[in-house]
């Protein structure tokens, strides 16, 4: 089927792509979003949202973000979908404005799923483990630099 890719017409191509979009939406995004919304609801119900906002306020302020964004960073490093879900939940509740979302979107994409990609990118590519700290450090450095710069652009 894949070898005959050039023989598909527009409709067949679109349907094939849209189907993978459907699968991604419901097998990957929806569970991630649900987990994120449950976490945010728990943070809101317990009142931890305010505490996290105060504690991480100064650090996140460097990137022009409110303190509560720290939850997005943590979730995003574990999983891209999780980070996006938490950010969406916080934006829905009015904790993040549109420029906060843009800054975080840049960050989540760059450091997204860092923990998973150690196993899925560095391992299969055959990189020696002595380089891992450098690669992880550079990944985070680039992501945080990008977030810092983005706050002046959006």
């Amino acid at each position: 089927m894949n070898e005959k890719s050039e023989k598909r017409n527009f409709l067949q191509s679109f349907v094939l792509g849209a189907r993978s979009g459907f699968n991604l939406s419901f097998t990957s995004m929806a569970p991630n979003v649900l987990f994120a919304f449950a976490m945010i609801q728990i943070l809101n119900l317990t009142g931890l949202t305010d505490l996290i906002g105060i504690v991480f306020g100064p650090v996140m302020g460097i990137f022009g973000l409110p303190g509560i964004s720290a939850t997005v960073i943590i979730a995003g490093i574990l999983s891209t979908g999780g980070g996006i879900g938490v950010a969406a939940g916080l934006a829905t509740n009015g904790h993040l404005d549109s420029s906060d979302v843009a800054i975080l979107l840049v960050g989540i994409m760059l450091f997204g799923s860092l923990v998973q990609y150690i196993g899925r990118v560095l391992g299969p590519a055959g990189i020696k483990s002595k380089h891992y700290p450098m690669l992880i450090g550079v990944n985070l450095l680039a992501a945080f630099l990008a977030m810092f710069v983005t706050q002046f652009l959006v």
Partner: protein
Amino acid sequence: MQDEKKIKTDTENSKIKKSNSISDTKQKVRIAGYISLVIAILFFSGIFKDVEGPLRALDFTNVLGSFGKLGTLSEGSGSIAGNFRGTGGAGVRDGWLFALTLAPAVMLALGVVKIVEDLDGLKAAQNLLSPLLRPCLGIPGFCGLALIASLQSTDAGSAMTRALYDKGFINDKEALIFTGFQFSAGALLTNYLSSGAGLFVFLEVPIFIPLVIIFLFKFLAGNIIRLYAMRIKEV
């Protein structure tokens, strides 16, 4: 014959007894097991549904939250929500409706990308990109195919990088640089158009602006690793 049968059934019985006795004996359970069980019982019991303060987070219904309201109408006037997600929802129920609102965007985006791919659009991108790889990233131009693949899937990208190295098309330093590039913002195209789409509704800037910024810093990450690879003697 009958005796044999009897022996057989006896052994079978003893087997069943044995397996029963296994399940009868107490299994070792971590302390976390008991704690989680107690919390789960409390969570589903509804005891904390109407309490004030943080403990209300320990209730299934409260975490489940509420669907948004579609609007209020009285005597022919009022307001109505913009879409089925409604307004003022919270928790997991709101998250579900939110996830539903994302599906069309993801399906449309990946559908269009597939058309472009089948029309050889990605191969065109590869051709345009290949001459830039040596100056911009310090890797040979024929890494273009693996690079385009890595924008769609991290697994495909890393597997192709490994193949390029094993076949001697790139040396170990180039493999390190290329992997560093893929490691930052892995599967960018797919992730941006699927997961990232979840945030597009909140953006006021055009969606390509964050994407351009991400690409620039992805190349920056690759180039920092390039400097690192140049300075070390052995990879």
